[in-house]
């Protein structure tokens, strides 16, 4: 499969800023994307990820900074002259052309020979698993098929960088998951440089080599999905990526990368990020998958000294196929716990032992407020969040 023959490019974004209507959309953004990398820009709406993507594509121009592709400054080059193609958020197939004409659009403009166009269109359609769709009409395509054709249309021009602006967000969950897997396969095959924007952290984590978590126009953290998951640099990243519980605790002692915090009347040890000091309040971040539950009518397992082992009550049970989502009231807070659904389920209202290992918990210094969709906290004093 020789769809993307030209070697992919290295993209360098240097100190790029953009202001809209007096509001900064992107602030001093710098990033280097290696050849053949799959990078996702992840963040909530308004974080600037789409603006940045559009600047790479040439649909917006930075107020400051440069964008350099393989050593060439393309900052002010218009989009039709950049060797970059984009798959847009909505279906933007041209309704007055059939599938083959859509896919061939860029090639025709580049005056590629007719026979070559036919061959490349055929290859592209095969790559997106829609062979034989050449003569189909656009209105007969499903959402998933349409976005695949849009991908084919972008790929067929052999762009040095391929941009994706949340292309799957309008599709059904199942189709989305399918296409995510396929996209990853295509990337592996072509070894192209992909830049992908999304607000769905699962999507970003499952497909990317690196994820850039953005917030209010700036980079919060960059790293491989595993690192972001295990070592979030800030509360924002911790709560945005994965399902985390964030609990405010008082730090009692600190040392050697570990702290002891007070939780539910006991001292619990946890890994600590730099900047956590004794005598201050901090945030304890617990992955929902990292918490273990045992029925409360037996003796709890022995755990290493300092790791948590608390008694709680099951407040809510939600069966979700392979996983079960529990809400447990323990130590004055409500925790979200995800467990495999194998074995017997805990009953609502029953007692449980809640435990996790020292390395499963991370304490972050107080400061940045969290984006916490899955946290329900009850402060002991009962004050507002």
């Amino acid at each position, binding site marked *: 499969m020789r769809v993307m023959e030209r070697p992919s490019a290295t993209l360098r974004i240097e100190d790029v800023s953009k202001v809209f209507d007096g509001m900064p959309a992107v602030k001093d953004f710098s990033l280097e994307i290696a050849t053949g990398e799959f990078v996702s820009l992840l963040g909530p709406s308004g974080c600037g990820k789409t603006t940045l993507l559009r600047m790479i594509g040439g649909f917006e121009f930075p107020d400051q900074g440069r964008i350099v592709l393989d050593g060439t400054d393309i900052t002010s080059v*218009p989009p039709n002259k950049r060797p970059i193609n984009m798959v847009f958020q909505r279906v*933007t197939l*041209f309704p007055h052309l059939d599938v083959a004409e859509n896919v061939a659009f*860029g090639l025709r*403009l*580049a005056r590629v020979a007719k026979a070559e166009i036919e061959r490349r269109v055929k290859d592209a359609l095969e790559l997106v698993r829609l062979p034989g769709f050449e003569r189909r009409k656009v209105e007969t395509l499903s959402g998933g098929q349409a976005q695949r054709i849009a991908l084919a249309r*972008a790929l067929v021009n052999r762009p040095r960088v391929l941009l994706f602006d949340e292309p799957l967000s309008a599709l059904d969950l199942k189709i989305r998951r399918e296409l995510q897997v396929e996209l990853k396969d295509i990337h592996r095959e072509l070894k192209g440089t992909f830049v992908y924007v999304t607000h769905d952290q699962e999507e970003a984590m499952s497909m990317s080599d690196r994820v850039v978590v953005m917030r209010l126009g700036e980079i919060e953290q960059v790293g491989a999905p595993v690192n972001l998951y295990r070592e979030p640099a800030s509360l924002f990243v911790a709560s945005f990526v994965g399902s985390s519980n964030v609990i405010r605790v008082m730090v009692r002692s600190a040392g050697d990368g570990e702290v002891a915090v007070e939780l539910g009347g006991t001292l619990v040890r946890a890994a600590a990020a730099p900047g956590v000091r004794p005598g201050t309040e901090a945030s304890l971040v617990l992955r929902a998958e990292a918490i273990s539950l045992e029925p409360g009518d037996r003796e709890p397992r022995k755990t290493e000294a300092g790791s948590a082992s608390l008694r709680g009550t099951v407040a809510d049970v939600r069966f979700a196929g392979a996983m079960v989502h529990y809400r447990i009231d323990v130590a004055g807070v409500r925790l979200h716990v995800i467990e495999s659904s194998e074995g017997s389920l805990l009953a609502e209202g029953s007692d449980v032992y809640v435990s996790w290992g020292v390395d499963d918990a991370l304490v972050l210094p107080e400061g940045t407020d969290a984006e916490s969709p899955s946290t329900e906290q009850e402060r002991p004093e009962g004050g507002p969040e």
Partner: protein
Amino acid sequence: MRRRRRSWGLLLYTTFVFAFLFAPVLMVVLFSFNRTASLTFPFSGWSTRWYEEVFGSPDYRSAIAASLKVAVATVAIVGVTGTLAAIAVTRYSSRAREALRSVLLVPAALPGLFLGIGLLSLFVRTHTDLSLGTVTVGHVIYTLPYFFLVASNRLLRFDPLLEETARDLGAGSFTTFRKVTLPISAPALIAGGLVVFSLSWDEVLITFFTVGSQNTLPLLIYSRVRQAVDPSINAISTLLLAGSLVFIVGVRRFVVDLQQ
């Protein structure tokens, strides 16, 4: 639970309304095939003699030609200016867009009388001879808002991302317009053009003020009616009607869209 609501009263009423709307016109068409000049039922016979009279009359023939010329010219001018304006309005920011839209719709809010006398004064002052050209000017200003309404209604639904996509794939501004914007907007523009033709073909009041020595068809009918009622008017009226209606067949698809 949805109950079937049968409103026979309303159905009957609405049927009468439709009958009221169409009956007069149907009469004219019917009588144009009457063998005699009488306006009574039943007919004494069917005939196309009035049509023969119309087609044989040089007055009628030149009036038809004149109307055609004016209508085609009007469609051309309004088509170009109106399309550009519709694109401008559906593309740009709100404030300017609303202002432009209002300005473009003003001629439709005034009775044709004012457009007519205004243009007449202008032509008199500038010593312009009245001709089919001046008639065309009148038709252009009269039909422009209607074209704009029809065209911009459809164009508003044009996704701007389509143009960005074209540019992403390598098209410059003009190529984007030619290969993407125009083809996709074509149905709306054609619908608008048909509306303009129909309005121009039928226009009599503004024409009355701006016409020179050459009659258009509606004007000819108007002056004939004022003189005497003769049956050939039925025939020519039916032809006038045909001119307006033949476009309905083509417009149907677009017009139904308009209602949505």
